């Protein structure tokens, strides 16, 4: 029986899942995007706002890690966040929901690498910190804060 289960699981791994099925690399101009928040300093609970800190990029080249959540249920969206936080041995605190229109008119773009599935990076961050702060502030303002239920 265990063998059959393993065999079934092996073949199931070749079936495209809901998370990766038919998702184009090109990101639509109104696609829903989520930034998962694992630091409570990245949002202001009493005023219910996302702070720009949540969007400031890491690394060189600087990127901000986000997920494309089009077509997913609310539970699925939270599920991705919990998995991401667990991977880092952290606890998911909240999420910032926005759509790609928040990046319009800015030098920022979404690079959908799909690694892990549905993952994308916000790229194109300018060099100057004040420019980055302004962009992060703008995206944060256009985001909706959802605290972990």
């Amino acid at each position, binding site marked *: 029986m265990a063998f059959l289960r393993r065999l079934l699981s092996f073949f199931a791994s070749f079936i495209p899942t809901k998370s990766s099925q038919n998702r184009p690399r090109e990101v639509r101009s109104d696609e829903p995007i989520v930034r998962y928040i694992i630091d409570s*300093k990245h949002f202001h609970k009493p005023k219910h706002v996302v702070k720009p800190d949540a969007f400031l990029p890491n690394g060189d080249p600087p990127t901000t890690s986000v997920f494309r959540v089009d077509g997913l249920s609310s539970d699925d969206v939270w599920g991705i966040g919990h998995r991401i936080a667990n991977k880092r041995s952290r606890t998911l605190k909240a999420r910032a929901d926005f759509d790609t229109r928040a990046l319009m008119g800015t030098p920022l773009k979404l690079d959908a690498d799909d690694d892990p599935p549905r993952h994308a990076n916000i790229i194109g961050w300018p060099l100057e*910190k004040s420019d980055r702060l302004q962009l992060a502030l703008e995206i944060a303002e256009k985001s909706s804060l959802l605290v972990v239920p």
Partner: protein
Amino acid sequence: MNSFALPLPDFPSFWAAGDRSVTRSALRTAVPVFETEAQSSSVSIDDVRRELRRALAVAASEASTADWDGYGAKAVSASAISHAAELLDSLPTTVPPPDISIHPDGEVGFFWTRGKRLSVAVSISPTGLVSFASLHGHRRLHGSEYLVNGLPSSLALVLRQLHSDEE
């Protein structure tokens, strides 16, 4: 500066090696909250300022090693903390206390918000460069200035704008 007596968080014994390395004593120098009023009666620090310095010390302790955010962030440096403490001291008493955090690039962040599209974000670098960005309705202003003689004038302007109709 002497040893501290305030109930402060337990700091990691040493920060990252190299020129970023910071010991507890260096942190005491950078964030003078570690010096109590009893130890330095000549310096009067009001409760708000003391609480802000404590918040700065807590934020610094949480970001004292590389990758503190799980996304590969840089550790905060003693000089960034020191400049941030200086900026805190230069804030007018009419400005409400900011939220204090550490940014992924290791700079210290201050944030004020009065709700939607009424926010100011500030970043203080290890060299004392103060970068800021603000949203005031549809007005945006951002820039940077070195912390030389107190609060940079451009930052003073956006903070005054943010809190002007509160007064």
